[in-house]
């Protein structure tokens, strides 16, 4: 994609995102955009609550909450290493939890995740994408997810501040 188009698309997305008043409204919007722009089949944004060391996310409807223990899986690993993580062969990765696939019947083939930092460099969430349509996740995806996680972090921190 031409970078000029990319600029307009991302700016439009950012403006739409800033119309959302809560995590429940904003997260599904981020998810659908991230999936499209990165060409992945699934996406989740996990919000990290430091007080009780928990991660939560919403169903695609933006309403129902799913709570995830923060010490587990590739998402938990991302929290600990504070860096993006690519797993292109999950079933042979020590951090991967096959339980979720078993429960949902969905097969994870590859994944990328990145921490989302606030202005004080504290982790406020993890962005995760599953099953890229073409090939494996690579360094270009990593560069983009770092940029994108930062780009949405302003909105996420703003929502958190408004609630406080």
């Amino acid at each position, binding site marked *: 994609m*031409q*970078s000029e188009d990319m600029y307009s698309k991302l700016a439009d997305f950012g*403006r739409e995102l800033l119309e959302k008043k809560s995590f429940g409204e904003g997260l599904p919007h981020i998810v659908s955009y991230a999936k499209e722009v990165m060409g992945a089949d699934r996406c989740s944004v996990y919000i990290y609550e430091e007080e009780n060391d928990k991660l939560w996310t919403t169903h695609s409807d933006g309403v129902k909450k799913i709570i995830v223990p923060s010490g587990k899986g590739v998402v938990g690993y991302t929290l600990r290493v504070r860096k993006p993580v690519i797993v292109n062969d999950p079933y042979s990765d020590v951090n991967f939890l096959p339980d979720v696939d078993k429960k949902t019947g969905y097969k994870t083939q590859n994944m990328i995740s990145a921490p989302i930092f606030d202005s004080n460099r504290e982790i406020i969430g993890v962005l995760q994408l599953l099953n890229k349509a073409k090939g494996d996740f690579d360094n*270009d995806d990593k560069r*983009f997810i770092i940029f994108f*996680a*930062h*780009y949405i972090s302003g909105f996420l921190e*703003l929502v958190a501040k408004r609630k406080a």
Partner: protein
Amino acid sequence: MKYTDTYIKLADFGRELLQKKSLSEGLPHIAKYAKDVILARRCSIYIYNSENDELWTTLADGISKIKLNANKGIVGQTIRTQKPIIVNNAYAHPNFSSAVDKETGYKTNNIITTPIFNSKREIIGVLQLLNKDEGFDEDDVKFMIFFAHYVSGFLELITKYKITKSKNNEKL
């Protein structure tokens, strides 16, 4: 916390900012908003070029550029320490450079600065405010840290996809 009401209005500001198509359109918009919210008389956003260790900013018209050596003054100190700085008595501070005051005829009494980081935690700019009547305090620092991060998404977006478009070898 004196900035509580501000967070409610920041979404509108962010949406307006994302309509700007260039740094020279965006910087005056950021400067004006920061000045009004933090109640300072002046605001500058310096864009940092690490290749030649130079900073530049635009005048209020968004057109004329001013260049600055990045190792001078309080702004230079902000780049080196990578942290916000409050100086409530400018002329008594060893790093304060009075050269700009001499040139512009404007007297600086107090200063607050904060670095602006991109997604890779590299400094891409410095946000600076001058002359708040009652001086700057810790609440101002906290808000500046938040605000610098908040505008960094726009600054990185425009730098990544607009200015560097000539060397268009990066994917996306």
